Structures are given as C-alpha cells and as structure tokens.
C-alpha cells in the first residue's frame, strides 16, 4: 500500500523529472491496463449478512437457552458457598477491639490484643479459606502501586543494595537500603489472627491454620526470590539492609521456616499483589478438611484472637476476617449467576419480540422482494 501511495505521489511531484528522462523512461511496452482480478476489482466473494429479525431470531433464542441454565448453575454454586464475615475493626465502643483501635498506631511497641467471638450457624464442610478483608484501603493508588522494586523482590543483589527510585521515600532509612523497599511493603498487613473453636462444654480448641499455599505458585517460586539463592542464612544475606520503617521485624524474621521467610514469605507475597479495588480481601490461612466424617468447621461458637497491629483509623477503614468455602468459580458472588439469568431472559424476550416483528414486517418485505 505504501508503494502505491508512493507511485501516486511520484506522478505528481516528479512529472517533469520522470518525463524529462525522455525516451528511456518513455513509453513502455507494458500496458497500464489494471489486472482483472477479483481482488483489484473488489469483487472478492463475500458473505454479506443482513441483520434481519428472521436471521437473528435463532441466535437470540440460543443465547437465551444457553445463558439461563448457566446462570442458574452459577447462582446455585454461589449459594452453596458458605461464607462468614466478622468485622473486628473496633469502631463501636461495644466492640472488643475498640480500645486497640483507639490507642494503636504504627509506632506503638506493645502489641494490643483482643478477642472477637462469633458463632457459625451452619457447618463449613470442605476446605475453608480464611481471609482478612480491608475496606477503604486504596491499594490501587497509582503512586502506592508503583512504590516497589520487583527486581529486589526477585532476589537481585544489586537492587537489594540499591533499590529502585520508585521506592522513594521508602527506599533507604538511616543510610541503609530498605528491604523490601517501597510503600506497599511498608504498609504490610501485620495483624495476627487465630481461630478457636469453643466447645459447648467451654474448652477452647485452636483450629490449625495452614499458611502455605496461599500465594500464587508462580509468585512464590519464580517472581519472588530471596537474594543469595539457596543460602538459607537470610540474616547474612540481608546484612546491610534495614527493615521498612513501619515494620517491627526484619524481613528475614517473618517466619522461622526458611521456605517461608524473607521475600518468599507467603503473607508478604499475598500483600504485595496489590488489590484491584479499595474493598478487598486477601487470603490469610487455609483450614484444611481433616476427614470426611467431621466438617472442617462445625457449627458452634468461635473466638477470633486478634493481635491488633494494623491501624486503619487514618483512612476510616474496616478490618474483617472472612471464612469462606470455595467452588470452581471462586468465592461467593451471586452477581454472575443473576446476570446470566437476566441476560438470558432478556435475550429470550427479545427473541419473542423479534419473532413478532418478523411476522409483521419480515413477510411484507419478502413479498416486496419477490415480484409476482
């Protein structure tokens, strides 16, 4: 195409030049007759659909017939998901965490503890995922999102010593580079949640929470790496760096398990995957099903022990703990099911309307088309 444009310009701009080259460039034996090909004559065989009621009717009915069952399936699946949410922010004075929320700030040194009790009306049968949820926390703020150094998190030693400028002002502290740098890491969620089942007889049983497998496999194994490769002595590896200002521990003290320490700490990884919306949940722990006989979480009373470290008052946020079973379509969300049912119905309805239109007008047109 470029070439043909060029030729057209050539004829204009260089008329006398090319012409002046005279006999040599003059008449050529080749005829200028355009090729009589379907492409050049714009006669390529083509499918020319005309959208009329008659032709699209089936499509509407098919969409309706497919969407409604899908919607019902989704809706049922979503309804089968057990979900329980408890807000432990402590906004109300009656709330057990009220004192913690009032007094606590990033600089406090002594952890504040509180316990929230709740009861489950229905047992949770399969694996239960335990989330912590934050509201009004804009993890998607542009400058917040940018404030990280992926190559540092990927174990790059140079970046460890010299983090990216994007991390400013959480790049260095006391002339030492911060590991992990940036605002995201700095604001790491650091409440500790523990779940206890209260037997009807009053004994507290701690429910085992699994902290592995909560992050994406690829994040844990590829994207996030501790510097120094397989050197498990993280203290040495991270020597010369300092902790983020809001942190109480160094990054190599996040966990005792070397597989889950440093940058590959799964809680850390989960936090670093910034949430899309200001109200979000993040996977905290998994409660695995023990046996087929007993439900993972039987109905009854529970206590959530919170080590209240994370202040949310500055942005009027809320903190929640969410227990949820999970299906193939993720967590509980009836929206998709309802949407499918609605759209399916609408399409079906439109199909009917079009059918009427088709009968009223389509025939008239057809009769006009074919002369008698």
């Amino acid at each position: 195409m470029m070439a043909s444009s060029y030729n057209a310009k050539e004829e204009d701009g260089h008329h006398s030049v090319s012409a002046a080259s005279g006999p040599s460039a003059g008449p050529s034996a080749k005829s200028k007759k355009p090729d009589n090909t379907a492409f050049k004559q714009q006669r390529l065989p083509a499918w020319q659909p005309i959208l009329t009621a008659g032709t699209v009717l089936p499509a509407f009915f098919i969409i309706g017939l497919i969407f409604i069952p899908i919607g019902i399936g989704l809706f049922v699946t979503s309804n089968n998901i057990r979900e329980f949410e408890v807000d432990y922010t402590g906004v109300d004075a009656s709330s057990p965490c009220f004192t913690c929320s009032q007094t606590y700030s990033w600089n406090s040194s002594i952890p504040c503890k509180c316990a929230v009790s709740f009861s489950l009306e229905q047992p949770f049968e399969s694996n239960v995922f335990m989330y912590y949820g934050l509201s009004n926390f804009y993890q998607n703020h542009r400058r917040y999102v940018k404030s990280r150094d992926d190559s540092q998190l990927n174990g790059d030693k140079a970046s460890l010593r010299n983090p990216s400028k994007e991390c400013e002002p959480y790049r260095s502290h006391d002339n030492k580079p911060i590991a992990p740098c940036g605002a995201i890491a700095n604001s790491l969620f650091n409440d500790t949640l523990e779940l206890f089942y209260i037997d009807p007889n009053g004994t507290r049983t701690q429910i085992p929470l699994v902290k592995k497998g909560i992050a994406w496999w690829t994040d844990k194994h590829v994207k996030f790496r501790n510097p120094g490769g397989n050197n498990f002595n993280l203290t040495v590896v991270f020597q010369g760096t300092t902790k983020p200002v809001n942190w109480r521990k160094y990054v190599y003290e996040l966990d005792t398990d070397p597989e889950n320490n440093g940058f590959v700490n799964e809680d850390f990884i989960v936090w670093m995957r910034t949430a899309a919306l200001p109200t979000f949940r993040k996977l905290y722990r998994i409660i695995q099903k023990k046996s087929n006989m007993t439900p993972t979480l039987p109905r009854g009373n529970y206590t959530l022990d919170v080590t209240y470290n994370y202040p949310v008052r500055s942005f009027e946020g809320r903190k929640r703990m969410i227990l949820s079973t999970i299906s193939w379509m993720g967590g509980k969300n009836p929206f998709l099911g309802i949407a499918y049912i609605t759209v399916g119905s609408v399409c079906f309805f439109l199909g009917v309307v079009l059918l009427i239109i088709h009968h009223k007008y389509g025939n008239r047109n057809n009769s006009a088309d074919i002369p008698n």
Partner: protein
Amino acid sequence: MGSLEVWSLIKQGWRRKPEQEDKVRRLISNLPYEDLRRKYQPNRQYANNSIKTTKYTVWSFIPMNLFEQFHRFANVYFVVIAMLNFVPIVNAFEPGVALIPICVILILTAIKDAWEDFRRYQADKQLNNMPCSIYSRKEKDFVSKCWKDVRVGDFVKVVCNEVIPADILLLHSSDPNGVCHIETANLDGETNLKQRQIVRGFAAPDGSFQPEYFSSIIYCEKPSNNLNRFKGYLDKPDKKKIGFGKENLLLRGCTVRNTDEAAGIVVYAGHETKAMLNNKGPRYKRSKLERKVNTDVLFCVALLFIMCLIGALGYFIWLETFPDIPPFVPPDSNNNYISPALSGFYMFFTMVILLQVLIPISLYVSIELIKVGQIFFITNDIDLYDEETDSRIQCRALNITEDLGQIKYIFSDKTGTLTENKMVFRRCSVMGIEYCHRENALRLGAQCETISDDEDIVFQKPKVPSRLQYRQKKGISSLRRSQSARTHMGARYQSEVFTITNEVAFSSPLETDVAPDRRLLRVTCDEKTQIQEWCRVSHCNGSASFMDFFLALAICNTVVVSTAMLPRQRVSRLQSLLKRMGSLSHIVNSFQSIPEKSSKSRSSLKDVKEEEAEDYSDSGSNNPSRRNSSASHHSEEERGTVSDPNGLCYEAESPDEAALVYAAKAYGFTLLARAPDRVTVRLPQGAVLSFEVLDTLAFDSTRKRMSVVVRHPITREVVIYTKGADSAIMELLDCHGRSNKRKKIASKTQRHLDLYASAGLRTLCIAKKVLSEQAYDDWASIRQEAESTIDNREELLMETAVHLETNLTLLGATGIEDRLQDDVPATIAALREAGIQVWVLTGDKNETAVNIAYSCRLFNQGDMVFTLNTDSRSILDCTLGEVRRYTAPSQSWSFQSIVGAVMPTESTGPTFGLVIEGRTLSMVFEAHLQMKLLELARHCRSVLCCRVTPLQKSAVVKLVRNKLKVMTLSIGDGANDVNMIQTADIGIGISGQEGMQAVMASDFAITHFKHLKKLLLVHGHWCYSRLAKMVIYFFYKNVMYVNLLFWYQFYCGFSGTAMIDYWLMIFFNLFFTSTPPIMFGIMDRDISAETLLGLPELYKTGQNSEFYKRATFWIVMLDAFYQSLVCFFIPYWTYQGSDIDIFTFGTPMNTVSLFTILLHLAIEIKSWTAIHWGFMVGSVLLYFIVALIFSAICINCNPPSNPYWIMENQMADPVFYLVCIITTVVALLPRYIIRVLQGTLALSPLVQARKLDRLSTEARDQQIKNWKSQRSPSEVPTNLVSPVDSFSNSFEQSFYNSSLEREIRISFPSCSLSFRLQFLFCTNIQYRSESTSFMKLFALCISSLKYCSFLDFTSY
C-alpha cells in the same frame, strides 16, 4: 480553439501579477572564459544544470526529517504527552514506555520518506548524467557532456528527438526557415508541435553556426515559472538591440522534433528552468469529512478536558475525605506530603497522559493509509481504464477520495467533456447558399443517432429508406474497423520509434474523411475552369468567393503539416523544394510539376463520387455490406499507396482547425506545407499556390477570431482571411457596402448559422478583406512598432489586430459537429437521479449549447426552459423573482431534497431548465443578484450557462460552493476550465484532445465523461461510506477503551492508575485493533457496484452525509460510554470484594473490550471476504498470543504492572470466560438490536439495496426496475397511465412523438425572456393542470413586466 483561448487567459492571469521589471538577468557567452577558474566565470552566480530534488542528504536526514515530522500537530501532541510523562510528579506510566507509540510512528514515516527520497535521488542522478553536446572552444566543436555540466552561457546543440537539457535561446537551426519544432508534451501534455524561431538576425546564410563569434550580451528576465512569458534582448557589440521572446526559447524537458539539429545559448539552467519551476509537489486539499473530523476531534479534546477535570477534582475531594494521611498515599521522595489542592492540580496532567488516547491521533495515520488503499482500488478499476489511450484514472490529489461521495453540484464544460472534441465537418454555407453535405451526414449517420432527431425537425431532412440506412451503418462499421486497425498501427509506431507518446491527434478517418457535398463540388469544379480567368481578373468577383472560401479554410489556421507515415518527420524535401522556388518572384508553380499526381487525385475524387452515386442508386443490391466494406477497403488501400500529398497529416492546436483543413482538402484545396512566412496550397486542378504570409493575428478569446495576412501569389494583393465566431465576424462586416447583395448574403448566412447552432453544430464565419498596398504598409509599420515594444506588448498587438479586422467581406460559414461522447445522456441521467445538479458552463453560443443540452438529456423534451438574456439590472431582478415565484411551489420536493429529506415526493408537472448567458451572468454578479439566481437555480433541474468566460466559470462555481455550502465538482478538459477545476471542491480533468492543463490542475483525471458515473456513484459512495464509518468507529473505539480507565478512577481514588498493563494498552491500539478498521476502511463493500450503478439514488446518503453527522458522532459516543460502562462494571461486580489484584482485574476488561470493539466492527462490516476474516481472527489471535507470551516471560519487567503469569492464570479460570461472554453480549446488544430492526423494517434505501444484492443478477435487475418505477413515477410516465386512459394516452403519445413545439417569445426593449416548452395537448389531468399554470405564469409575466412593448408570438 479552446487551447488558444486558454493561453490568452493564462496570459491575462499572469499579467495581473506585479512585475519585477527592474530585475534583469544579464549573461554572456562562456566560451572566452573556458578553462578559467570558477571565480572568473562571468555567469557563475546562476544555478548550473545539475538538479537536486531530494530533500535530505545522508547526514541531514535524521534531524531534518524529525523537524519536518514535528510540523504535524499530531506528532507534537504525542511528544508533549510523552515528555509530560518524564515529569515525575505527574507521570502515569514508565517514562520510556510512553515513547513507544510516537517512536513507531516517527520511524515508519521516516522510512517511507527515506525511500521516497532515495527514489528521487536516483531519478536526479539519471537525469543529471544524460548526455548532451556542449560547444568547446578548444575542440572547436560540440563535445559530449552530461546534463549536469551545462552552465548558463554555454552553447548547447540538440539533435532531433533529443530532450532539451536546459532553457536555451535558439540561435541556430538546421531548418532552412530558421525554425525548430518542439513537442511540449512533457511540460503541458500537448502533443502537437510548436514552432520556435531563431533569434532574428542569427540565421546564418550557409547554415553553419559559430559560437565563438557570439559576442552579444543577453538581457532577459529573471527565472519565472510562467511558461508563456519570456522576453529580453540581445545587446550586440554594435549597440544594436534585438528583442526576443518565448518563441525563441527552447524549454528544458521538451523534445526536438522534425528538426535535424538546433543550437543556442543556455539562459536558464537546472532549478531555474521553467520546467523545474513549474514542477510542484502534490496538491493538498482537505476533504469535507476531514474538516468534520477535526471539529469532532475538538469535541474529544473538550471531553478529555472534562474528564481530566473530574479526575483532578475527584482526587482533591478524595484526599480531603481522610482524617489522617493514609498509608497508601505515599509522600513524595523528600518525605513531604503535597497539599490536596496541589495534588489535584498535578493529577490533571496525569489524567491527560492516562487518557491521551481519547484524542485519536492514530486516526490521522489510519486515514492516510486508508486513502492510499482506496486510491489503489480506484486506479485499478478496469472500468475506468481507457483502452484507446492506455490510461487509467489518475488520482492526483491523495486525500479527497471521500469527497467523491458527497457531490451535490457538478459543473461541466461542454466541449471535450460532454462531447468528444473530435470535430467533424458537417455543413457549410457559402455566399448565402447552404450546402448540407447529406452524403457526409449519411456517412456519419450511425454515430449521431442521438441528435439526429433534432436534425430531422430542423432541417426537414427527407426520410432515407431504411435499407439504405442499414447499408450505411454497415459501411460505418467497416470504417470503424479500419480505424481500429490504424490505431493499432499507430501503437506499433509508438513502441518502435519512441517518438510519440500519443497517437497523432485528429486523424481518425471519421474526422479526416469528409465526403464532399455533390452540389458544392460541382460548383467548385465549375469554378476550377475559371481559374485562369481568375488569374487575370484583378478584382475579386462574386464567383471567386468559392475559391476564397476554401482557400481561407486551408490557409487561415496554424496547422502544422507532416506526413502520415512518419508523423513527426516533416517533409523536409518538399519544403526545401518549395523554399528553393519560393522566392517572391516565383508566383505560380508550373502546373506541370505534379501533373500525374493531380490527375490521380482527381480520378480518386471521381471514384468516390461514382461510388456514392452507386450507393444511392442501387439500393436493391444483394450484398450491400460486402460491397461497401470492399469499397472502404479499397479506399483505404488507396490512402496507403497515394503519394505524399494524400498522406499529409495535420496537427492543429484546436480540432476545429484540423476539421476545416480536412474539409478544404476534400474539395481539393490541400494544404501542403506551412512555414512561418509561407503557406503552400494545392488547388483542385493540381496547381500549387504558394502564399507569402505577411502576418498571423493569432486567436484570442476577446477578439474571438484569428486572421492571416497573405499576399496572393497571382493577384499580388494583400488579402486578409479571417475566421471566427459569428458574433465576432458579423459585427465587422462591411455593412455600408455598395451592393445590397452582401447584406442579403449576410442575413442568409446568419439564418444558416442559427440553424447550425440549433442543430448543435459549432459555427464559424469565414471572411476576407483585400487591403491596398498602402494601407498594408501603414499597418505593418504600426505592427512592427508594437512588436518591438517590451511593455504591454500584448495589448498593442491586439489593438493592431483589431485595427486590421474591419470591413470584412463575408465568405461563408461552417458548421462543425462535435459529437457527444459515449453514454453521456445516461451518465447525466444517472447523476441527476443521484440527486446531483448538473450545470453546464460553456463558451459556446446559446443555441448550440441548448441543443447539446437537449441531446445529452440535460434538458428533457418536456422541460420548461427559461432563458435569461438581458443587460438590464432591474428587469433581471424582477424576472428572477417572478420566475422563481412560479417555479417554487410545484417544485417543493427539490427544496426538500436540498434540506435533506430522504426521498423526493412524487414530482408532478414538468421540470425546469435555466439557460443563462454570460452577459447576464456578469450582470448578476455586478448587481448582487446572486442569491436570487441561486434561489431560482435551485428549483431548476439543470442550469446551462453559455458564452461564459473561464473566470465566470470559476465565479459560478465559487458562488454555488460558498453560498449553498454544498460540495461541488468541476469537470473539464481544456485550459479554459482550469480556473473552475481549481475552484471546485473536486476538480476532474479529462485527458482528451486539448492538452494536459486541465489534467495538471485536477484532482482526478479521467478519459471519458461516462467514467464519472462509476467514479462518483460507486467509488464515491464506497470511499465516503467506508471512511465515514471508519472514522466514526475510530472515535468510538478510543472513547470506549479510554473510558474503561476513566471508570476505574472512581475506584482507585482518582489516582490515575491503569488496571491494564501499559504494554498491552499500547499494543491494543497499535496492533490488536488497528488493522481491522483500516481494512474495513479500504475494503468494506456495503452495496455492490452493480446495484449502486443501477440505483443512483443511493448516492444521496453520501450527499446528505448520512454516515457521519453530528448526531451520528454523539450517538456513537453514547454507545461508547454504554459499552465501556458494561465492559467495566460487569467484571467489577463479578470481582467485587474478592482478592483479585489490579492487573488480573484489568485482563478480562482488556479482553472483553477487544472482543466488543472487534465485534462492534463485525456488526458494521457489510461484506465478509476472506481478508476480513483473516484480519479479524488474526487480531484476536495476535492478542492472545502476545498477551500469553508477554505474561509468560515478563518476570520482573515493566513495573509496576508486572504481568507475570496473569494471563495464564486468567485463562485457566472459567469465570474469565463467563465474564467475557456475558459482557460482550450485553455491550453489543443495543447496537445489534438496532441494526436488526433497521434490517427488518428496511426503512433506509441502503438496507433495501443490500437486500437486492443478495438476489441473482436477473432478479436484481428486475427489482431495480421495479424500484425505480416505485420511487420516481415521473421518470417513467407510462406507469401513470391507467387502462381507462389508454386511448387518450395513445393519442397523447402521438402528439408527443411529433413534438409539437411552441415557443413563446416575449421581447422587451432591453431584455428577452423566452419560454420554450413542449406544449402537449393531452387529456391527462396532470398535464392540463400544468397548462393552466402555464397560462397563469404567462399572465403573470405580462402583468408584472410593464415594459412590454410588443408581444411576438411565434410557433413553428
């Protein structure tokens, strides 16, 4: 004649420019300074002949190209945005990433520019190294050098068929007459030869040329691009000044023909030559659509501003809501927190960067690409290819293709545009006696069926037996065959000899063979016997007028003679022979010099006569066709074998001249040779007369005539032969003549002229004047003076010419037919059906123009035609008003169609035509009656302006264009149409008989008027609908996509976060969704060409800009908002409250918008070819492949989005697919439903036409017929008739056929307003009502125009 007119016009135009007379170029010969260093060269300050048309050098390419590219606003915008991104406080993306789009565009453009420049470089190099001969003092001869070595002041020799390397002042020619013929085809496309003369006084008697002895100083004007202006003088060492002009200048780029060699001194070289100064770049016009696009881009800018403002305010408010500084609002790098107000301010710019795509910068690139593609298809259309000249349609303007689909007014030239401009001699009137050349008419019979009806009426031609007609047609077909054979031969010549680029003009047998009128032939034959007597009688008596008439035809022209076999090699032998015996003492050649030839030619004449007699007599012959073809074969053979004189070939600047010369030849008056000072004619008896040409008063458009002043070889009288427009000649006749006879002749001739004109013939008057020796000498001295002046020489020359051309004696008049081109009536009918108003602007006289207008169906027989012809302002004023008042009410539909109603309602009654004369037109402009005229013209079906000057033509176009605000198109073939072509929105040039000026000035160049139909109705419609839809789609696409980001701002605190990976975002616009719309813009075919041609009214959609209105823009904007809302909120609600991260959240949105955007296009695509499928599927595949690969390999690249494994994760999640499906369905549902309803209810003609397209060919044709009868019953009157009326109808039809015509003429002292109408006696109520309204009008006119002095009612 047209081209002559033009030349003078252009001259006038140029004269108006301020002249810089004080600046003169002075130069001397280089020879004495040969071998000296450059700084001693006398002419060193002038440019040398090496040319450089390249823009760049290797080193300057990058900076200069960048500089040029940044002249475009779009690129600057891009760069500013990218630069903004480097400011840390406002940046939205990685700074480097933002540079990608601009870099891609800049690099692509740069590569294209570099390639073009390289091609130019190669062309320059080739040109610079062409060989030429330059005189060297050392060698004492011409040595071969390159073009680039030529300098101003050099002596250069050019041999025959060589291209002239620089502008050379001609000092030497091998031609004994001191002339040199050049072909200027490379400059202006005219293939006829032009004569150039040696500067006076330089003709060496022995034919040798010695540059060493050239010691004059040349003064000439500064280089200018005016091909027609060049003057200066030579300052000889003896202080004598010799003037020279453009007839002494050989122009660079022209080719020397018919002259063995020529030499001269270079005055301008290289870039200062006229050819190079005329070499301008391509034209740039901005199309209507593009202007509209620009305003809509401004809307987008406003939208962007509002959105950014919302973002900035939102951010400010959002920050204010927090009691304390939240942890997710990081401080700046110095650990300071910026105040919310300032943050909001910065956020505005961040938003600009984020939402920049809202302004569709890539739209401009896409439009350019699409136009290239559209032009590719237009130029490749085989229907617009002309086999005869082997030329395709040329698209000279690259960016107004879509304007072709929006034309409302067409302004057409007549001669050469509607007609072929192949002049055929039809009739003549000599001394008041009409010779109708029936034989010739019969010969041409078959070709002029279109106007034969008229002729029947006017001339009461006796009905020819049908059988004879049949025979004649057969004869014609064989004639045609021989013509095509000849053409073929001509083509072979072209390839072998490399001398001609075009076939020799005006030489097809159709035009050259004139069958002489037997009556006239007899008269001339009789007169031949009087020749001796005539020789003795000094005074010209009446009977000699026949001689004079034909002599005038043969002599009074500027035709160049060459032989047919070697078209460009002049008969130099014959010429030198003539020269030798042509000294003034020799008057008459010996009759015996060519006796056998003459006898032979006479016998051949006799043969023809006999054959024709046979043709008439034996109509009962068994096998007429064979006989006839053999006869023509025979005559062809004869033509091939006869000696030189019969093989003569005439090349004229205007076809009329050639036609006249051929006509004279048919009567035995053969023009043998023409030199500047000598014309040789062979008389029927074989005598060869050689006239000394004393002067030639060339044609110009103000005088409208030309004359030659010759000395009669026998009588020694000074005779002036004049030919020109009848109006120009009739006024100059010797009225107070001695005899009444002259007056009688004049009035008779005038009547004949009127007849000719009403038959659509072009008329010319031939007159003569004998001048006394004394008078001539007086005049000659004045003339000499005029010639030697430098200032206002043109005016003086004209004055002298006017002086001489007085008291003429009328000899006769000629009628030349200019035949209509193929399919002109059909084309005009189709264009009119398409809602296009066709105006014809012609310089021809009223009657001729009106008749052509009838024959090409510009006016229909039933039309009421108003002729405006007045000088008086007040009368014109009230006439316009009255006529309008009458036309307006019944023509309400045409008004509606202007306003934009879809369909014209049934139009009852006759339509109106308006004929306006140039005189009246200038009155209209002077008296500011333009609006009234337009108001009237709007109600008229067609408007015909006759006797208009080129300037008036452009004034009319400008008037309509500016006042009615409509798209106009001008089409013409001659240089007199150049103004009009340049004024109109689209100028179309017809590369026909009259050179290339029109083509050079045009935007599109076609070969036939009929091509206009397909060009407008099909390509225009396609180009417009494609581009309009594409542009709308492009706006939609960008707004829809960008709004996704905008909606997200409400959920990310207006912080300017993009939830889509920036690379994918760039690629989205650059690769994933860019090619389908471009392909759509180039290739989509909503309706097939056949249907478009069959139903011209479909064109109206383009005229009314139905594809792209302001409303369309806003509707598509609404749709874009809706779709983006759907594409954002369905994923939003799906993932609301979940643990999804930003870029995982963005992926389904990106995917969904890709689907939506592509499927939206899919709804708009009307025809799916394999290419469409390829692009659509390819785009989707490309997206997924790129996204998958990108997120698989990008582990920690591209912060902050870092898309590692996101796509893979999403594609493993069934919810992703569920979201994609439902979102796409919901997003497209409204548009789909609307399209379905449109398709079902089929209210728009386009949809109906598309339905027709699906039928088989026959069914479609049938449907198209039905449609037409349905839509416009008035076009097919038979449909109106009910069976009850059948009897009365047949009665009416019979009247209709006999065309009972009434013309009512109302004449006023200073104005004449005439109504001409077909008055139908009919029983049909419709017509009756019309006739009553006619009477009303009639009464109205009489009552309102009180000036009425007498009423003249004539009816034929």
